[in-house]
């Protein structure tokens, strides 16, 4: 007999997890709606402001590049800057990652210090680091490399340290049992295991850094962004569009190459079997006849055909060889281009502690109430851009999820569309929107929303693709329509992931909104840029601390909530 009692049993209990999920959702939703209302943007803004956007597009048409040679050189500089920055980041992040891994360093203070360093470098936007380094090394590629390198430690250090902590303890114990010293234990027991993921992570970072490096020129740190700034400053929008298109194509190419190579390294191409990169590169120790010399000194003889031990020259190995040697070539090139001299870098090092020392506020003289208002505005911009992007991202994500998309071609079209949108640097969109729609937070929010839209659609689509088919089949078997099926079996399953990802999007959005002021799009970035221009270091330092607290608080909150809901 069906009673109300048994009905209650079917309903999931009101658990802590569920109420938290609801509370987060409501707070997040209210935050986004309020911010959108207060800043004065909504999804229709794109439509109501279309006239201004079209006017600007009209002035931008047709894109042209007067001096292709300069653009090509700048593009190469940008790539080398990203490459050198990533290399510097990896170089610095590896030791720090080892120091912060709990299975390598037992001393909690050392580990804590290493983690703190990782957290701080992650919270400082590379654009702002670049602004500061431009002060030390003056305009050029060098400050860009340092900014990218330092900021990269944040992500690289954390992910490297995670993969060190996840190693298989077997080989390490074996090495220790054979009497290896501490250094030998690390180099032979740990390093070979983590190198594939180190390389994959570094490649991913190279992809991210290349995106970032196209913007660094906006603050004078060299590369193609300098051209964007010059064309914007002289209102030459046809060339601005020309250079922007070049940047989009380059970013898309780098992303495709980077993800292909990553797939090869992590062995996605040949099933679950993970391959050592060293083996793929053929750099591992080759077995020699000597290894089999019997103890009594009899002549050595290999018990098998040596050729069989060499990794075959298959497609993966060729890809890896090409990749490896181009990395080496890039590295040499990156550090030998005229603009980027090691000597200049080292000569500038003594100034860096001084600059950072100057950044420490001695008192609160730098504080003005306006900074408080701008900080609130920055947070609102972050929320509003997130809200705006989600309105468009969730429907698009369904079209871009293989298992929900109405047709294969829709799926393909949606995925390529997202790739294109993702290749559009948000700050360049902001430059264009500020020109078309005027100054202040609205154009910044709209620009940021476009960037976040590409990013969040991809995250959402991926998590919709991961849902279980069972509940869908069940719902479909009861005769549900497509709409009912999606609302009762697809969305509820994907919801925790969507909420978790939304918080991550918010995290990313807030970071980005701190620098939008650089191009006049509102928020705390503006006084920050003015402060660096005018050498008001205590003000810059004070604002940096504010940004750090803001970004770090959101990161902790978002990580905590994500842990609860997913």
């Amino acid at each position, binding site marked *: 007999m069906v009673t109300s009692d048994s009905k209650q049993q079917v309903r999931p209990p009101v658990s802590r997890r569920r109420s938290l999920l609801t509370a987060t959702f409501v707070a997040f939703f209210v935050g986004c709606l309020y911010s959108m209302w207060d800043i004065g943007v*909504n999804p229709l803004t794109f439509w109501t402001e279309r006239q201004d956007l079209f006017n600007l597009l009209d002035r931008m048409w047709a894109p042209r590049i007067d001096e292709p040679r300069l653009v090509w050189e700048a593009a190469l500089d940008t790539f080398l800057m990203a490459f050198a920055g990533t290399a510097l980041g990896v170089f610095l992040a590896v030791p720090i990652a080892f120091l912060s891994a709990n299975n390598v360093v037992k001393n909690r203070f050392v580990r804590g210090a290493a983690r703190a360093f990782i957290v701080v470098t992650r919270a400082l936007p590379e654009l702002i680091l670049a602004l500061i380094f431009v002060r030390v090394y003056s305009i050029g590629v060098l400050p860009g490399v340092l900014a990218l390198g330092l900021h990269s430690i944040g992500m690289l250090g954390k992910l490297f340290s995670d993969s060190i902590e996840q190693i298989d303890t077997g080989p390490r114990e074996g090495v220790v049992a054979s009497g290896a010293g501490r250094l030998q234990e690390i180099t032979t027991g740990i390093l070979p295991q983590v190198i594939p993921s180190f390389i994959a992570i570094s490649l991913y970072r190279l992809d991210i850094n290349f995106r970032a490096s196209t913007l660094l020129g906006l603050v004078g740190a060299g590369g193609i962004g300098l051209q964007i700034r010059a064309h914007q*400053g002289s209102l030459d929008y046809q060339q601005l569009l020309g250079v922007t298109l070049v940047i989009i194509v380059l970013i898309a190419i780098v992303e495709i190459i980077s993800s292909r190579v990553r797939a090869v390294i992590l062995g996605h191409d040949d099933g679950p079997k993970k391959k050592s990169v060293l083996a793929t590169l053929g750099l591992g120790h080759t077995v020699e006849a000597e290894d089999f010399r019997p103890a009594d000194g009899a002549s050595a003889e290999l018990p098998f055909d040596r050729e069989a031990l060499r990794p075959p020259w298959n497609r993966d190995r060729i890809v890896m060889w090409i990749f490896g040697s181009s990395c080496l070539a890039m590295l040499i090139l990156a550090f030998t281009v005229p603009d980027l001299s090691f000597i200049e870098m080292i000569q500038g090092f003594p100034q860096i502690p001084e600059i950072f020392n100057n950044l420490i506020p001695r008192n609160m003289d730098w504080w003005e109430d306006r900074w408080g208002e701008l900080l609130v505005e920055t947070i609102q911009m972050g929320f509003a851009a997130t809200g705006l992007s989600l309105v468009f991202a969730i*429907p698009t994500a*369904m079209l871009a999820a293989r298992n929900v998309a109405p047709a294969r071609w829709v799926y393909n079209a949606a995925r390529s569309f997202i790739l294109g949108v993702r290749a559009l640097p948000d700050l360049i969109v902001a430059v264009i929107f500020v020109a078309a729609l*005027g100054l*202040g937070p609205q154009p910044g929010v709209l620009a940021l929303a476009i960037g976040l839209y590409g990013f969040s659609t991809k995250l959402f689509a991926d998590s919709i693709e991961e849902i279980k088919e069972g509940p869908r089949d069940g719902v479909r078997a009861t005769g549900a329509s497509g709409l009912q099926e999606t609302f009762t079996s697809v969305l509820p399953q994907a919801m925790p992931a969507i909420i978790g990802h939304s918080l991550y999007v918010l995290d990313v959005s807030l970071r980005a909104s701190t620098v939008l002021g650089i191009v006049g799009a509102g928020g705390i970035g503006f006084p920050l840029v003015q402060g660096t221009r005018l050498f008001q270091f205590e003000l810059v330092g004070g604002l940096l601390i504010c940004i750090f607290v803001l970004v770090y608080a959101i990161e902790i909150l978002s990580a905590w909530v994500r842990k609860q809901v997913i």
Partner: protein
Amino acid sequence: MKKLRWLLATLTALTMFAAGCGDDDETVTLTFGAVPAENAQEISDYVTPQIIADELGVEIEFIQAADYAGVIEGTIAEEVDIASFGGFSYVIATGAGADLDVAGLWASDTPDGYGDYRSYLITQVGSDVNTVDDLRGKKVCFVDPGSTSGFLFPSALLLAAGIDPSETSTDIEATFAGGHDASALAVANGDCDAGFAYDTMVTEQLIESGDIAGVIDEVEDETVNGDVAEIRIIDKSAPIAAPPLAVGNWLPEDMKEEIIEIVTTKVNVDWAVENGYCDSVDDCPLSDGPFWGYLAGDDAYFDPIRELCELTGSAKCQAD
């Protein structure tokens, strides 16, 4: 197809829902835009927007752009209703289609006539740059591609010496510091080998603010604290036309007339002191530098700057 249809429905519903939250203003709000010509900390304290707001009975939103292009674009997009910028910015904006009128022209110390000012070429004390010719191969700080005394007049000076001043120049390394103060400070700090800034920024404002200790004038006799000076003036431009306060023709005709009336009769230190906006004539921050107020003027006043702009051959001076 069913799926696609409901997706479109969802999209529409969400869009309409969120659109309902847009704000609609009741009071008239005008936007006052200013370029970062000078210290960002002080510019928002200027009382000019306040006088216009009070006298006109409207709200004024003050916007400070990150660069000159921000205000210029703001006037083209009709987002900035009243713009405070230089003559060159006005010429670029009107040339690019901004429908602007001159609300007032700057008068420096007295209401007797338009003020003029000059652009100074400065270098560090002890630098080997002594003339414009010495700038070849050096890093030169300009203010902004839209600045009159920070780019247009300096460009003319360099072109006369046969040096290409553009961003893509191979004769010099051209850098835009973003503000007159930033340009002068970059020279004082050695970030730039030489740079341009407007006259009183170098000889008064930065010294009063304590950012530089003194300046040596090698052209005329404007040396201040020469014994401790960090920078020296090695060249000066011809006098530059007074900067305008511009107003958008898209505003209702009677409102525009009223704004012009207020600007030319009330935005001056005498009126401001009488009506309690400032304590004294000497301490009345209507704008930066020596500033008495605004006098009536017209668009034709900027024709010489239009001609100079065309002489420099810059793309932004060519009417599209």
